């Protein structure tokens, strides 16, 4: 049996949990998340407010400490690094923030902001810092004229470029992009998205792209993980997720997105009621309170199952509700695998 293409996993998250204690109880912000992100890919994390996606991003970057679970980077467990290891990791894993208006120090110029990471580490020797700063500013498209400006003198798009430049200054392998274009106007959004994609191609970066905007995530991601109230409900390749969403929440989410295509206006799939509280939640699927297909077994703790290769869903009823889609997907997968076998055999025949 020919195995699949070998995965080059850069970041692996294993049963990650982050709980906060508040006056009213314990907030289960991130509850048992497991995923793998391969080198060079973009993993989109989507969900609505309160789903925990931002918290997840910050925990991976070590801006917060997870309550339990593991983070594995390049095969090494980096969940609780010591000071030296943390310093090294800062050079490998970086973050771009959502709000270009509050993620830059108002008292530092563009140049100072980008040079700061260089000063803090010793990636380049002192004599070369100036030149390196200029190179990064060119890379992200910051006009020469504004390099001595302060953040409040720049517009949102430019500020976000500075944020991107700062993240790149340490030459990281992995960048968490926390809603990097949500605060920008549509035309500026497109500029920044294009920039991020170009940089990924040029620098071989791996992204975790967090957003609530389904259209954006579809555009930029290879794989998507859907989160709801701290739980991971579905993970799949982007195209496949959009073509046949399996989890009821994913299905509702996709149907709610307005599209500009006049010929494909669709009816939204209704969810009942409002979002439930993340404080001391009851066991079982958190979406059960609003799910149109809820049954008794939904209140049992759910497991993340690999329905198809690399396609994970956390829903006890998925096999019965989506028989047809799963069947179709299975067949597609078989055909794909057949093609891969044939290609591999060709390779063997040609003496490779």
């Amino acid at each position, binding site marked *: 049996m020919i195995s699949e293409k070998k995965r080059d996993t850069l970041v692996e998250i294993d049963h990650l949990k982050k709980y906060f204690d508040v006056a009213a109880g314990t907030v289960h912000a991130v509850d048992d998340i497991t995923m793998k992100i391969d080198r060079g890919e973009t993993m989109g994390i989507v969900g609505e407010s309160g789903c925990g996606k931002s918290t997840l991003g910050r925990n991976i970057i070590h801006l917060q400490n997870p309550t339990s679970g593991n983070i594995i980077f390049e095969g090494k467990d980096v969940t609780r690094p010591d000071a030296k290891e943390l310093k090294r990791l800062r050079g490998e894993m970086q973050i771009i923030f959502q709000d270009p208006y509050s993620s830059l120090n108002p008292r530092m110029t563009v140049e100072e902001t980008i040079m700061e990471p260089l000063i803090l580490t010793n990636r380049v020797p002192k004599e070369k810092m100036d030149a390196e700063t200029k190179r990064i500013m060119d890379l992200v498209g910051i006009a020469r004229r504004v390099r001595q400006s302060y953040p409040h003198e720049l517009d949102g798009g430019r500020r976000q470029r500075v944020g991107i430049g700062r993240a790149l200054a340490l030459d990281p392998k992995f960048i968490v992009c926390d809603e990097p274009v949500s605060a920008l106007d549509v035309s500026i959004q497109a500029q920044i998205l*294009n920039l991020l994609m170009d940089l990924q191609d040029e620098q071989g970066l791996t992204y975790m792209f967090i957003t609530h905007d389904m259209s954006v995530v579809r555009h930029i991601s290879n794989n998507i993980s859907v989160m709801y109230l701290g739980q991971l409900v579905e993970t799949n390749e982007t195209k496949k997720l959009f073509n046949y969403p399996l989890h009821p929440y994913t299905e509702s989410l996709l149907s709610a997105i307005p599209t500009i295509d006049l010929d494909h206006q669709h009816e939204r799939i209704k969810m009942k009621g409002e979002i439930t509280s993340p404080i001391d939640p009851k066991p079982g699927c958190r979406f059960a309170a609003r799910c149109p297909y809820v049954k008794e077994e939904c209140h049992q703790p759910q497991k993340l199952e690999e329905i198809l290769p690399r396609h994970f869903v956390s829903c006890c009823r998925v096999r019965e509700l989506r028989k047809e889609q799963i069947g179709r997907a299975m067949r597609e997968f078989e055909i794909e695998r057949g093609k891969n076998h044939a290609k591999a055999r060709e390779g063997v025949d040609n003496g490779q």
Partner: protein
Amino acid sequence: MKNTKELKTTEYDKKENRFKTIVKRLFNNKLAIVAAVVILAIIVIAILAPYITPYKYDLMDIASKNQGPSLKHFFGTDDLGRDIFSRIMYGGRYSLTIAIIAVLAAILVGIVIGSVSGFFGGMIDNIFMRIMDVFQAIPDLILTIAISAALGSGFDKTVMALAISRIPNFSRILRANVLTVRTQEYVEAAEAIGCSKFRRITKYVLPNAWTPLIVAGTMQIASVMLSLAALSYIGLGIQQPLPEWGSMLSAARGYIRDYPYQLIFPGCAIALCVLCLNLLGDGLRDALDPKLKD
């Protein structure tokens, strides 16, 4: 064609000099400017006092004692025949100087306490703030008197007493701002690129948290002047023959019915300074107000 190179744009981001904007705004406030000029004048007069006063401040002329305002003595003389006008001019050296030094010292200590307390939170914050609570539970003046009485009178001891009594105020103000700024994303971003706690405090938090202290400081100078006057009035603080305005008030209090001018002039000097400092403080606060940042 990659759009990552320099943009062909129609931007209008003029290089706006932030400092100039603030100064411009300040200049639009006529009252604040007048107040600033008056303060400046008082300071200049105080500095030049030895050269420009008609008489030396401690020159006694018993024959001319207790005379009302006249052409020879603009503000009259006190009960030892000293020229009040000259003493008022000299007085700025003590009243204003002590007040400014005390406030500066209090701000410095307040910054350290406030930033450490606000940034680290937890037990450290608790301890510091409870100590501050104790100090602030006692009315300002009584506290100042108590510390001053404990330390004794004289220039530096008085400065210390006044400074200590103001530290809780400044540390609270700074701590409040630090608490707000600390949660800003750019401080998180600094941590993400490997910034040490110390550098985060000094380069990211403090520069964005300290501006309210400018205004608070200006206002406190006025308050400290009043406290100093009170201290001298009751026999602590600065004593005769030094012409501190408060002690001048004290010396003349027995004569309030017979020679009221001996109280009016030092009283007005204090009042004028306090008024101008408050107006200047208001003007600075308006000029620095970020809401006006369009």
